[in-house]
């Protein structure tokens, strides 16, 4: 720390256990895992409203056949940005926020292993997204080639702003890699001495596996966008058929990143659910060992199934068969997880506070998404589903439940621990029901649209698709606007006057190191390692 920084510090904070600095500098220079977790979560929350608003614009355009609001060019920008921001700007940062807050608390560590790096990996993000979103205000179109940015649509035919997109992906990738490194190092080195591997909470296990996935595939994504950059400006032809390149190479590279990415998005969520369900069932998690193994198996299989996104590209039958079988196999460990959660609930002593409601919503909707996942794994059927609304329905069922619901569940669950404030249970329940109803009204009809033949990513459609699209749009508005309740709850818990005291344990059935700490958690915790029971 420089001298100047020392002088500007609050004089009271010169004791050993000082509190945070005040004002903007606290957040800019912080190396405290709790502050950084908070930054990640708020960042993700803001981005959620941005990307959500884009989704609503898309739904408005699709309310009726014919042009409603957006021209096709702007429509494509909205679908693209919605996807990119939701994946990279909402879900990944929110999961990283949970990791930052919780991993040190759960393993009995005073902080993350590499606190300065931690600061940097967060602060890369606002710049990355400022760069990405700035393309919307440039004179040419913003990225408009879908979040999958297939070449050559994004290279030879991409708008000028694609270069901004490429650099922002680089920044996001660097941020994720650094965060993942930090998490791996923390979990390996910073556990309390008595925290054996097989005592680790599943959230920590899931994040450990996720961090390895990130380390493996984010560089691939970086390579992918770098090749795009080369093709666009340095006369290479990686993806340009006219120059002897191979547009399919792009898809291979992209999906080699893209499939593990979906596990990056949901595995930490599995960890959150594995914490919440036992608490509200007042019963330990069923089959802990198998849950750990299943997580690892899902991750490993995740590396060898990428071509299931490319069944219609003219792949040879041998490749199609292999990738179909491998993909179907993932249903086994995923099934184990679902069955174990149900077994945990079975013969428990259940209560239904908001975190539990979201966990149950996850369980049901994720299972439904898993079913449609099994269907799209079958190559012949996939010929009909591929790039139709059926796929849109499928991945929103798994991602909205597997990521968004689990994040929300986790926030409700740990919010009293973080802030010392209990949220309003009635409002929480209202939020859950509106979100669940909205989500299903939005995405259930999309299955039917896809089966009836509506392609995804079209700004306008034939008359026969009108009814379901109107239902979807109504659902989307319920879904979107009910998040304002969440906003209110969070702001109230974070900034409102403290009304009543929350106990250390908060929830009757909660177990784990974080629940031994006072609520709200002090700024510095576990400076001496706790003893794990």
């Amino acid at each position, binding site marked *: 720390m420089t001298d100047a920084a020392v002088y500007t510090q609050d004089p009271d904070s010169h004791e050993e256990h000082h509190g945070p600095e005040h004002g903007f500098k606290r957040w800019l220079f912080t190396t405290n895992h709790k502050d950084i977790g908070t930054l990640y979560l708020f960042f993700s929350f803001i981005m959620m409203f941005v990307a959500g608003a884009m989704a609503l614009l898309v739904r408005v355009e699709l309310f009726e056949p014919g042009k409603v609001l957006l021209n096709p060019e702007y429509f494509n920008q909205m679908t693209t940005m919605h996807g990119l921001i939701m994946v990279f700007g909402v879900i990944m940062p929110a999961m990283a926020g949970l990791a930052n807050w919780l991993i040190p608390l759960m393993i009995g560590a005073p902080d993350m292993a590499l606190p300065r790096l931690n600061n940097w990996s967060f602060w890369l993000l606002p710049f990355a997204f400022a760069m990405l979103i700035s393309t919307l205000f440039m004179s040419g179109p913003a990225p408009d080639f879908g979040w999958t940015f297939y070449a050559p649509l994004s290279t030879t035919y991409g708008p000028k702003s694609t270069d901004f997109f490429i650099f922002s992906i680089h920044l996001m990738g660097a941020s994720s890699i650094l965060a993942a490194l930090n998490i791996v190092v923390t979990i390996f080195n910073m556990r309390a001495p008595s925290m054996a591997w097989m005592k680790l909470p599943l959230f920590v296990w899931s994040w450990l596996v996720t961090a390895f996935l990130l380390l493996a595939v984010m560089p691939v994504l970086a390579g992918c966008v770098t090749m795009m950059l080369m093709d666009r400006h340095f006369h290479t032809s990686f993806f340009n058929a006219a120059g002897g390149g191979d547009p399919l190479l792009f898809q291979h590279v992209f999906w080699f990143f893209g499939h593990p990415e979906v596990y990056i998005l949901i595995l930490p969520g599995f960890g959150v659910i594995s914490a919440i369900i036992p608490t509200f069932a007042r019963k330990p998690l069923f089959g802990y060992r198998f849950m750990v193994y299943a997580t690892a198996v899902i991750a490993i299989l995740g590396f060898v199934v990428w071509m299931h996104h490319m069944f*219609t590209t003219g792949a040879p039958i041998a490749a199609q068969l292999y990738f179909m*079988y491998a993909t179907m196999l993932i249903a086994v460990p995923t099934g184990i997880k679902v069955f174990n959660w149900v077994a945990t609930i079975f013969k428990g002593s*259940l209560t239904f506070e908001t975190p539990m409601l979201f966990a149950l919503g996850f369980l049901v909707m994720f299972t439904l998404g898993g079913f449609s996942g099994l269907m799209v794994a079958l190559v012949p059927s996939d010929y009909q589903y591929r790039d139709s609304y059926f796929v849109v329905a499928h991945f929103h069922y798994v991602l909205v439940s597997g990521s968004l619901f689990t994040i929300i569940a986790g926030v409700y669950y740990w919010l009293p621990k973080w802030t010392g404030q209990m949220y309003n249970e009635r409002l929480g329940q209202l939020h859950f029901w509106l979100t669940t109803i909205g989500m299903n009204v939005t995405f259930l009809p999309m299955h039917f649209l896809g089966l009836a033949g509506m392609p995804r990513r079209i700004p306008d459609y034939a008359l026969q698709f009108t009814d379901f699209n109107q239902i979807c749009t109504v659902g989307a508005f319920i879904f979107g606007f009910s998040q304002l309740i969440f906003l209110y709850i969070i702001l109230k818990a974070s900034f409102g006057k403290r009304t009543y005291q929350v106990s250390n344990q908060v929830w009757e059935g909660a177990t784990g190191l974080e629940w031994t700490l006072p609520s709200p958690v002090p700024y510095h915790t576990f400076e001496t390692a706790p003893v794990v029971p």
Partner: protein
Amino acid sequence: MFQWISRLVLFIVIFLFTFTAYAVSGINLPYGVTPTSREIYDLHMACFYICCVIGTLVFSILIYSLIKHRKSKGATAVHFHEHLGLEIVWTVIPFLILIGLAIPATIVLKHIHNTDRSALTIKVTGYQWKWKYEYLDQGISFFSNLSTPQDQILNNAPKGKWFLLEVDNPMVVPVNTKVKLLVTADDVVHAWWVPELGVKQDAIPGFVNENWFYADKIGTYRGQCGELCGINHGFMPIVVQVVSQVDFDKWVKLHRPNAGNEANQTLTMKPLSEKELMILGKAQYDKSCGMCHQATGLGLPPSFPPLKRSRVVTGPLDGSIAFVLTGVPGTAMQAFGQQLNNKEMAGVITYIRHAWGNDKIIINHKQPIIVQPSDIERVRRKNL
């Protein structure tokens, strides 16, 4: 509160179901008119029913617990948390179910991959944003464009029955014939998808993918491009007309290039009046150029430049013609020389030189506005 909410949920579910039943036609895959589409349908339904059975099982146990094992009903937790036997059961049973699904899927897939013994081969090329069909043995080749008028899309006219699913020149194939498709693309990735034929095949530049269908029912089948290919991805439908062999033969005769070619050629070379050229040109412009350069001639800059007051359009005649004939490689501006004949080209160029006040600029420069098919032919020769 809880009761109120469950009533609301029930209401919404019932509403959705009745709405579905009465108001909406398509909620499932079409059974289709080809053997493969039907096999796919059966596989799809089989998988769906299996999922229903598993879902019913899992959800009944879940719902049973949620009702019976509530703390508010005095349930106390039973502390079991491990059971190797159970874990093995729910590892092995799903595995067996998956094998049961993989077998029929493999059989269907083998069938789909059998492109042997086709009687007709059509090369399908995706362009931004239209399809080109080439009947390799018959020597017939044409483009298939969206034919829904812009007015319907912009809500200035009532929408027709096949809004966005209609084209000017459909693919025509004989019934009960194995048709082989060779699918590729000229610019970006597209996908040729007709649900009722059970075919979706990506069209990728630099690759020629094979696929096939055998339609056994006469009729018109519609589909759309299935891979995001740019701004007008939603506006490049596919229409396949399955006709009797007799009708197909008639169609071939009519469209074979050497049939009446001579007459055709002279017809397309005949000089036309200014009025004729403008009518022809406007129609052709709306069809071939309007989606990018817009009916207003203002384009969608910076992706698509305006043609109003464009240097190229208002410059020397031969330059204008040559530009549109050859396009700009590597951009969305294609070489229209291959797509339009001399007469159509003459109409389009006349139209763009006339419209949006371009004529005034051209007259100022003392250049001709009217373009005749013979001019096009001259520039074509020169550029060869």
